[in-house]
């Protein structure tokens, strides 16, 4: 991203403003999104004043408002829905699964549906079991539905415009802690790491590295919300254990962008996928499957999946921290695997 690094929430907010200016048929719907409140996480701040009539604050009806948004999309408009807490997307699951995504193809010919369901997600904010989850895995494998995740490396002006142009519904997972962080800028992450994109355009997966091209001990694949924790682990592994890592953060999580991942995986001795959800039917398992299928025989060991504990997410900060994947969870998992490999049998 060019210019002064801004907070991710500001970048997302300006992306919404830009999309609304660019398309007079675009609506934004959600609970408490109108000014002066501007949404529970202030992502829609200023939007209703700038675009009265097209920014609609709604009753507490997640199923209903995703249905209304799908109706707008069906009729040729476009719509972005904010689900206040991504956990509540469960209430809208039917509209996403059985109507919006299916309408792209179930009527026997392609029908574009320009619809984005934004889901503020993830824990580490002390909101407790029903306001801290990442529902990503529950939306995987639905024909006609793409999954994206907010990242500090991807400019949301590009990402939002891209999702709306796809012509099929998208779920956009947004890590709530990430809102408060700075966007990355000018290819530099910090004193140790740089970043770039695994492709020509800046919607391609981002990669964070010390050295862009060489081989590394470990490739970490993670969604945007995990970037900060993964980078902390990478720093520690490099400085204290001389383990070199590269991190890949796809913007589009599903369908899995296989080619970019394969290229990165070929240059790593070991691959792990980190995600905040519990284990079982996860995005990480999809990534691992893609890599196993294509790189079987070249991988030194199976792709390692790192998840949060099989548990509800407690409210108390110290309890929550124990359950969710943290930087040290990643570090310990990588160390355990690589030490296991290096120790004599």
């Amino acid at each position, binding site marked *: 991203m060019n210019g002064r690094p801004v907070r991710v929430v500001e970048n997302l907010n300006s992306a919404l403003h830009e999309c609304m200016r660019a398309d007079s048929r675009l609506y934004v719907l959600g609970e408490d999104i109108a000014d002066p409140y501007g949404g529970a996480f202030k992502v829609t701040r200023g939007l209703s004043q700038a675009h009265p009539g097209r920014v609609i604050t709604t*009753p507490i*009806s997640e199923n209903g*408002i995703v*249905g209304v948004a799908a109706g*707008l999309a*069906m*009729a*040729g408009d476009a719509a972005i829905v904010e689900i206040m807490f991504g956990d509540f997307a469960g209430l809208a699951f039917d509209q996403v699964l059985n109507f919006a995504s299916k309408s792209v193809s179930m009527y*026997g010919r392609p029908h574009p549906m320009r619809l984005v369901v934004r889901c503020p997600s993830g824990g580490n904010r002390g909101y407790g079991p029903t306001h801290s989850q990442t529902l990503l895995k529950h939306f995987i494998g639905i024909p006609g539905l793409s999954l994206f995740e907010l990242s500090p490396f991807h400019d949301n002006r590009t990402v939002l415009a891209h999702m709306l142009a796809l012509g099929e519904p998208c779920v956009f997972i947004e890590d709530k802690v990430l809102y408060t962080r700075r966007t990355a800028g000018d290819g530099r992450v910090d004193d140790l790491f740089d970043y770039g994109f695994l492709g020509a355009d800046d919607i391609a997966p981002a990669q964070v590295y010390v050295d862009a091209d060489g081989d590394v001990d470990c490739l970490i694949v993670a969604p945007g919300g995990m970037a900060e924790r993964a980078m902390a682990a990478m720093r520690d592994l490099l400085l204290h254990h001389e383990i070199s890592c590269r991190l890949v953060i796809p913007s589009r999580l599903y369908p899995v962008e296989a080619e970019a991942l394969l290229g990165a995986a070929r240059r790593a001795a070991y691959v792990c996928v980190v995600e905040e959800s519990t284990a079982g039917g996860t995005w990480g398992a999809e990534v691992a499957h893609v890599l196993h299928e294509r790189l079987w025989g070249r991988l030194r060991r199976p792709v390692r999946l790192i998840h949060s504990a099989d548990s509800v997410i407690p409210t108390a900060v110290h309890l929550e921290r124990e359950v969710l994947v943290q930087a040290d969870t990643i570090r310990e998992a990588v160390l355990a695997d690589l030490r296991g490999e290096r120790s004599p049998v």
Partner: protein
Amino acid sequence: MTNNMATTTIEMAPDGADHISPPADADLATMLLIRHFELALLDLFARGELHGTTHTCLGQEYVPVALVPLLAERDYVFSNHRGHGHYIARFGDPAGLLAEIMGREGAVCNGVGGSQHIFRDRYLSTGVQGESLPVAAGVALHLKRHEPGALALTYIGDGTWGEGAVYEALNMAALWRLPLLVVVEHNGIAQSTATGAQMAGTIRARAAAFGIAHLRVENSSLTEIRATAGPLVERVRDGAPLVLEFVTHRLGPHSKGDDTRTDAELRQVRAADWHALYSEALGERFAEADAIAAARVTRLVDEVAARPPAVWSKA
């Protein structure tokens, strides 16, 4: 919202052969076309020539036919699982629908959607109860902004009122003054469950709770239905949603052979069937029209069955 229609419930005179106004030839032909189309489907299933499932609207054919002149081409119609009559009344295209149901060439959705997932122009059906109401509200919002005067109609049954989506949509439609027309085909039975075992209170009271006007029709006479419903439908176009409840009868099984009603109950339903009332009221004219429709559907089934399979091109 101030709306003097809020508590309006109009109850039309009960049905009976002596109340039937003679219908126009075209309307009678459409009602009978739907009747024989549905009978043909049950026959095809019985002969093993159809797969999957289907839900016939036997007994309810007059409902969509009554509404045809109250609707414009620019109006959206959302149908449900029991939607063959809705489609045929709108498009007069039994061949495209039968091809869809049979998976043959010329299928309106290339055989992908089947009986309960149809999309053509501004007509769309879905297979999940209540799902279409929020979607129709969204389309109504689009129409209000971009094509004022047009409306979105959605057909639901009495059983659909068990779904929360219905209330979320009614709330938003009333709140935002959307041109949403909810047509309820209240046939007294949700699959196998009688209304009394699945609905507390009334549809009228539920509409009133949202300040939404309600018209209850206990009549199958097209002229009377149109005269009474017409002015209320026009108000929908100005942003006054309406629940239009038809007290009707489901003559056939829920799907193919799953009717658990007693003989006595079925006798009552058949006695109230519009087909019987119209036959009694119209005599020879009715019998001739009925025979023509039956023959047309027989030819149609032979013709469509002989077609090659539908081809789904995804591009």
